[in-house]
């Protein structure tokens, strides 16, 4: 009858448009969202396959490493980053701390009805930039939409895979008495950057999140050939909680030196104002390294040679302890336990 029209799709309205339930229906509206936002910014040959799963080349030897994290940060945009780059860094780091080269990322979005499409575009672009800088492509993904009041703007779950070369063994189970504990830089920057953004605090602060991909730094450390036992990123729960996890896994105790802990003055100040302890505040671009005592100085030098490790420090040592206590010699000259985070980090008034 009539002739066919030129196919035309009205582009997404990134200025005023909002996510609605149709964007998660599986139908044409979702296909458009994927085409114009996800595929456009994150696109690569694997994502472009367009199937339910991505088919990917694998190195011929080694073991696979797989890590996953849901990102639920609020606010979504904060000094130094946003949920987009954070969701790339967090998972790249969890793969890299196992000694693996991160190869591929999967990204799963849970969008809340009413979320601004423009904000989503910013987040996806930030993710794309982080993935590209890290050299780790997003190869597959998923998008769901939940009703208003059943989500919080956007949640992003990323899963990463990588490959560890044969013979390399890194694990929280490998710390042993005598080992030395290092940290790659200042503590608490990410968590405090987030908290200082909370409107109700009325803070103006120079604090910027440290969110960063650590696999480059880790490669530098591995290249020294030192006897590395454990690498881990002290995220939620901060340095204190992460060290307690490792102490429990390895069945050891630890003694930290408070004087050696690097903390930025502004982070310290914000902690003082809120009654918080920077040891419990989250980091997103810091590395804990535990190595044989003989290699500690080599490790420190290697860390400091990398842009992400300039503030690196030796902060303590591992010892035998059936109670797996992490303790600290205070700058004041006393001694205390540095316990697991208990409950939430709630600001303290008394």
């Amino acid at each position, binding site marked *: 009858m009539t002739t066919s029209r030129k196919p035309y799709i009205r582009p997404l309205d990134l200025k005023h448009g909002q996510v609605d339930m149709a964007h998660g229906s599986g139908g044409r509206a979702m296909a458009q969202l994927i085409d114009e936002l996800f595929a456009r910014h994150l696109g690569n040959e694997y994502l472009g396959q367009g199937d339910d799963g991505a088919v990917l080349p694998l190195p011929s030897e080694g073991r696979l490493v797989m890590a996953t994290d849901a990102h639920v940060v609020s606010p979504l945009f904060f000094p130094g980053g946003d949920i987009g780059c954070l969701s790339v860094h967090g998972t790249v780091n969890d793969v890299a701390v196992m000694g693996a080269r991160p190869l591929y990322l999967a990204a799963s979005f849970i969008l809340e009805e009413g979320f601004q499409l423009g904000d989503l575009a910013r987040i996806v672009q930030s993710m794309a930039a982080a993935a590209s800088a890290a050299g780790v492509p997003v190869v597959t993904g998923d998008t769901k939409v939940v009703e208003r009041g059943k989500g919080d703007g956007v949640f992003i779950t990323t899963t990463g895979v990588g490959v560890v070369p044969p013979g390399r063994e890194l694990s929280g189970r490998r710390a042993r008495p005598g080992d030395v504990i290092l940290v790659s830089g200042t503590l608490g920057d990410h968590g405090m950057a987030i908290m200082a953004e909370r409107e109700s*605090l009325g803070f*103006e*602060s*120079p604090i910027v999140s440290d969110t960063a991909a650590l696999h480059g730094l880790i490669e530098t450390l591995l290249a020294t050939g030192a006897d590395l036992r454990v690498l881990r990123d002290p995220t939620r729960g901060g340095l204190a909680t992460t060290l307690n996890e490792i102490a429990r896994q390895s069945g050891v105790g630890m003694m930290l030196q408070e004087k050696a802990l690097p903390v930025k*003055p502004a982070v310290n*100040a914000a902690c003082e*104002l809120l009654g918080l302890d920077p040891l419990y505040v989250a980091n997103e671009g810091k590395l804990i390294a535990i190595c044989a005592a003989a290699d500690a100085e080599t490790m420190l030098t290697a860390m400091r040679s990398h842009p992400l490790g300039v503030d690196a420090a030796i902060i303590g040592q591992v010892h035998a302890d059936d109670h797996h206590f992490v303790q600290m010699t205070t700058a004041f000259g006393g001694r205390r336990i540095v316990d697991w985070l208990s409950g939430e980090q709630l600001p*303290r*008034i008394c």
Partner: protein
Amino acid sequence: MCLAIPAQVVELRDGDNAVVDLAGVRKEISLSLVEGVAVGDYVIVHVGFALNKLDPEEAEQTLKLFAEMGQLTADGDGLTLH
């Protein structure tokens, strides 16, 4: 008993408010409980309120006492006694 911290007033604002600075972190607080606060003063901040001004001379004095500690004998040392 209650968490409070000395910080320097860097700006006076409307509504009996001020901005304090602690190592680069700035926060608006209320001056409703104190009188005669000027920019440059240190105040003790608790739940967003200045509780009191901090007296720099007394602080100096206290620190001096700490510093002389090694050499001190057992007399009053100029501590404020009520």
